[in-house]
């Protein structure tokens, strides 16, 4: 355990160190900084998604949390004329509220049924937001949303803090006692009952934490982009992206989702797009296929040489 704590500390130091290094190296190159910041943001979503996935179910509906977080905080800022950072928490809380409803209805579902139900649930949220014109402006969308971050560096630092928090919770979900509980729940629910773990509660906590972080990410995202319409946040792309990032990075490694998001997002944005404006998607596809073929447990596991047959 002590060793793991040391590793986590090392991880945090590494993230902070590298972030500051990048900030120093790319002074005046806000484009790079902002891409890395976006990568941090999506890495946090990936961490959040994986915290939930570690309880043994795959969600394809995290766009609902992301979008509700974005809508919640943007609308709160709009109606109550609030321009402080509190609104980010409002976004997270509304996503949490959605998670409570999910938990009430989907608690019994597992496997494919759960995945399908979450996907459908995200669709329901989208249609409601899209049609509730009087509250959400519907498909007209929101423009000129309050900008919370005065500059790119501020945005960068905020996402850095966010990713560190997400990293620590994700680390806890793998290495601490809670992590062990999650593991028993994902591997054998009956056995978990037998050793005194309460699977519904463990699963619920992971869902709530995951939803809150995802909602927070959505809120931060919208105050950066400053434009919002339903199909922008409530889409399959947002739901599937964390899955791809955590999978390629390594689902059972503490750093996996971050590495996955960082490599896939920033390399695509910074290196591929300029040179291959219309074929970079194919290269992206090849990268995914090759990574999964040669590193079936993800880049991080491959780097740390975790044996390929250890899945737990």
């Amino acid at each position: 355990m002590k060793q793991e704590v040391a590793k986590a500390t090392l991880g945090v130091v590494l993230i902070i160190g590298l972030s500051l290094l990048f900030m120093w190296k790319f002074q005046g190159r806000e484009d790079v900084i902002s891409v890395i910041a976006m990568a941090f943001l999506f890495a946090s979503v990936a961490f959040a998604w994986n915290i939930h996935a570690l309880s043994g179910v795959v969600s394809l509906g995290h766009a609902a949390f992301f979008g509700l977080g974005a809508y919640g905080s943007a609308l709160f800022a709009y109606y109550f004329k609030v321009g402080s950072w509190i609104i980010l928490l409002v976004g997270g809380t509304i996503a949490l509220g959605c998670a409570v409803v999910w938990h009430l209805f989907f608690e019994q579902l597992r496997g494919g049924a759960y995945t399908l139900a979450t996907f459908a649930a995200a669709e329901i949220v989208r249609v409601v937001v899209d049609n509730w014109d009087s509250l959400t402006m519907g498909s007209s969308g929101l423009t000129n949303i309050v900008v919370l971050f005065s500059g790119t560096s501020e945005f960068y630092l905020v996402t850095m803090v966010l990713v560190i928090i997400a990293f620590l919770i994700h680390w806890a979900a793998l290495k601490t006692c809670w992590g062990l509980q999650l593991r028993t729940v994902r591997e054998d629910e009956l056995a978990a009952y037998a050793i005194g773990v309460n699977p519904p509660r463990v699963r619920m906590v992971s869902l709530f934490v995951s939803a809150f972080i995802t909602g927070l990410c959505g809120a931060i995202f919208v105050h950066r982009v400053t434009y919002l319409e339903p199909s922008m946040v409530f889409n399959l792309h947002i739901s599937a992206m964390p899955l791809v990032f955590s999978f390629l990075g390594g689902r059972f490694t503490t750093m996996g989702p971050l590495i996955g998001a960082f490599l896939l997002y920033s390399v695509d944005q910074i290196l591929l797009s300029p040179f291959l404006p219309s074929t970079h998607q194919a290269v992206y596809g090849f990268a995914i296929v090759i990574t999964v073929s040669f590193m079936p447990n993800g880049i991080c596991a491959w780097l740390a040489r975790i044996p390929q047959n250890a899945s737990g």
Partner: protein
Amino acid sequence: MEQFVQLFIQSFSLGSFYTLLALGFALVFSVTHILNLAHGELIILAGYVAYVLEQKLSMGLWETLPIAIAISVVSLMVVVSFVLHQRRLSELHSLIITFGIALILQNCYLGTFSANYRIIFHKSRYFSLLGGHVFISSVQLYLITLSLGAIGGLYILFRKTFIGKALRATIQDRFAAQMAGIPIPRMQLLGMVLGGIAIGIAGPLYARVSYLHPAAGIEPTIEAIILTLFAGMGRIRILLAGGWLLGVAETTTAYFLGSQWREFVSAMVLVVILIFREARGRENSV
């Protein structure tokens, strides 16, 4: 009154269309446990093949079908065998890897067929019912008969032939099937061939009902995933029932509440049925 009959016809042809889109996916998933996200892209490929044949050689639906089927079978086999030969294979792995393949395919189509939207123009024949107030077009008839035919054919294959029973056994319990001496690779091959045939039928119809576009594959893939997960492994008849249910739900919602609530009701129906099925499953197992 005629309105509702017409609505009914529309629902059933739409439901049959959904079933046809899902059939190939469901077969591949049941036999090989691969969630093929490139499924829609393969349907689009079959559609493009039919489109080119129709443009260059002015072939009709029935003439293009065999060629589209042949190409779909081969391309599905290439994709699925590639995934099957991965060192590690779980459903999630297959999901991600076929997602990558789908991206590559989309880009290939963009290069080959350009970003233009394409449809196969068809001169529909109409058949009037109920004294001429209700119409059914030939494409709708194709949709309904082909989906019924495909499901019926599969039903006979699964229930009446020896190889079909072996395939069903493989779907239900792969380990037990292996113990019974059923060669799993051969069954997977059979699953791919059947899935390829289904995709080859769906493609040319897709080009007639909807439109072709390099990025259009996502819609049929989503539809296929929904229906397959909804029906469950190897339950081919439920697939048709599910398709019809969705078709009726969507069409009636769009009629009575407006098109904007379409996805809402179909998603609601899905969630409710999933929860109820789960609850019933629990009761039964106790």
